């Protein structure tokens, strides 16, 4: 997790208006960011590995059959890209973060393009909790918050099941309390 806010502050705080925001981390004194589980790195890497293995096998067969050097170059290129991608996957997972404030949920992610989404609980339409086979193998789950706006992008992957169900229950409870809809 990059740039943690000062620990110990309660996550619930009034919506910040006064204090000047920092250049990279908004509202460091009122928002306590939570990182997602680092096991997500393995999930993402395995996903990548499956793709790469298929690609490499195809290229290797092509090279063996045709004997053209271009396949070898492509193989080397794929390996190089894999190495780069591995680094970004690790960093990208560390960059995921979410924070629960009194009235809204913050989600931030992305390395190259950084995104921060602020979703008020009152606007929540429904919550998705999903876990694919790979995620289940590492006992992780994804919580996604949907609003009426299609552009809302509030997905939190890599949560422990207990944390995922806690978040889901909290979100639905808060959403029911304050439901406003449109």
């Amino acid at each position, binding site marked *: 997790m990059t740039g943690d806010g000062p620990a110990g502050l309660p996550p619930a705080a009034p*919506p*910040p*208006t006064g204090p*000047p*925001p*920092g*250049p*990279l981390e*908004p*509202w460091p004194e009122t928002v306590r960011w939570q990182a997602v589980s680092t096991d997500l790195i393995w999930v993402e890497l395995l996903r990548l590995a499956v793709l790469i293995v298929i690609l490499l096998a195809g290229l290797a067969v092509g090279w063996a059959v045709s004997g053209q050097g271009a396949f070898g170059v492509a193989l080397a290129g794929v390996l190089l890209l894999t190495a780069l991608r591995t680094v970004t996957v690790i960093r990208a997972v560390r960059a995921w973060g979410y924070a629960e404030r009194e*009235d*809204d949920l913050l989600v931030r992610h992305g390395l*190259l*393009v*950084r*995104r*921060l*989404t*602020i*979703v*008020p609980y*009152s*606007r929540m*339409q429904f919550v998705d909790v999903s876990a694919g086979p790979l995620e289940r193998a590492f006992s992780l789950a994804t919580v996604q918050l949907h*609003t*009426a*706006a*299609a*552009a*809302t*992008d*509030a997905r939190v992957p890599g949560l422990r099941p207990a944390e995922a169900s806690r978040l889901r229950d909290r979100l639905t409870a808060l959403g029911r309390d304050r439901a*406003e*809809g*449109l």
Partner: protein
Amino acid sequence: MSEPAARDPEETRPPVPQPHPGWYPPAAPPHPGGYPPTAPPHPDWYPPAGAPTPPVPPHGAERRQRLHPLSPALHGAKSLVVVIAGLSWSTLSRVGVGWFVVLAVVLALGATVLAVVSWYNTGYHVVDRELRVHEGLLWRRTRAIPLERLQAVEVVRPLLAQLTGLAELRLEVVGGGKTEAPLAYLSVADAAALRQRLLALAGPQPEAAVPAPDTSLVRPEAAPPGQPLHTVRNTDLLLSQLLTPQAFMIPFGVAFVATQFLSGDSWSFVAVASTLTAMAGVLLQPIRRVLDDWNFQLARAADTLRIRNGLLETRAQTVPLHRVQTVGATWPLLWRAKGWLRLRLEVAGYSTGEADGRNRPDQLLPVGRQPVAEAILAEVLPGVRLDDLPLTAPPPRARWLNPLGQPVLGAGLHERVFAVRSGLLTRQVVVVPYARIQSVRVVQGPVQRRLGLATVHADTAGGAGAAARDRAVTEAWALAAELTARAHQARRASRPR
């Protein structure tokens, strides 16, 4: 929307002797007319599954009604057009005119028979605060449309329907991928009455918000009911559509086809006809706009906007004012000499599902001068004026990303709305009331990070929302915080309604 999730009237009724096998009515034969003649409106239509729910008040239930008996004929005639388009020019050249006509008629007749079957099995009624639509012969479907989620109602009358005195009723509901439950077709009086009823049920105060009965649909040329706000002159509309890039392209397209036809022998009639058909789709958009927005009339009745337009296909659209998500103003380059602009409104129901934009009845003002636009905007969002929005440009370093457009970009926090401006040639201003903001996003791309800029998005349920592009990072965070806080306050303020 496919299952009646909410209320199950079965729970409150005395037990029915037959066991329910599932979705289908029990073995007892259907009622002779398909409709129970007495008070219990629909004994067997709903699956027994579902949580126990509060009893349905008896006054909310009513008999199921059919669509107008002429609807299958209209559907059949409509399918004739589709069939001809599907058979295409090449088929015509291959089989000859005689067979082509036979083929088209047979296919259209088949479609009509299907339409009759589907008409026989389709019914609707209002139960409590829901509109229920039953349809399907093999796959029976009951849709319960909660009216509190109704966003807009539209009465559409295509040319054929105008000739036969029918109308189609379309409801826009949040979360529907497309227009929910187009009731095609009803008689005009039924459509108007049903619209009135649905809007009254959907309104915040069901009793108070019943406006005077809407009689205008009987006379389509009459002004919409309520206080008229504006009528667009048809000459202005024509001229404005001539001042579009597509209109300038038409002569070139025609000249291209003509020269091909005259010079080369290789071009047969079919080739020319196909090319013309293909080009029509793109180039005739201005003409379609003219047809769609002909006789554009805007009126206000109580808390709703009434929009009526169309030449061949008339639409009468009713939008409750509190359902307006965003309002956008556009100044196309070629219109600037005339000082014209266009206003659009976004309602949550008109989703991006209908991609061609033609079926999105989002016009608030197809063409008009600034004072007219200001007057309309004042009705929709009181207190907001286009010419004194507090817009500020992003910092000068945003020029790296927008070499020419940097001074045009702008964003600002008005008392009631978030406003953004963009577009060098086609200038656009989008206005989002704080109470309609669904979520706020801050996005920073790699170049923006180097320059210390970020883009702030305010997402709304309908349309694309508003994006303040390339603000300084500190300002972007402050903007996001302020937007969240103001959206929260606006929701708080509007809750006790």
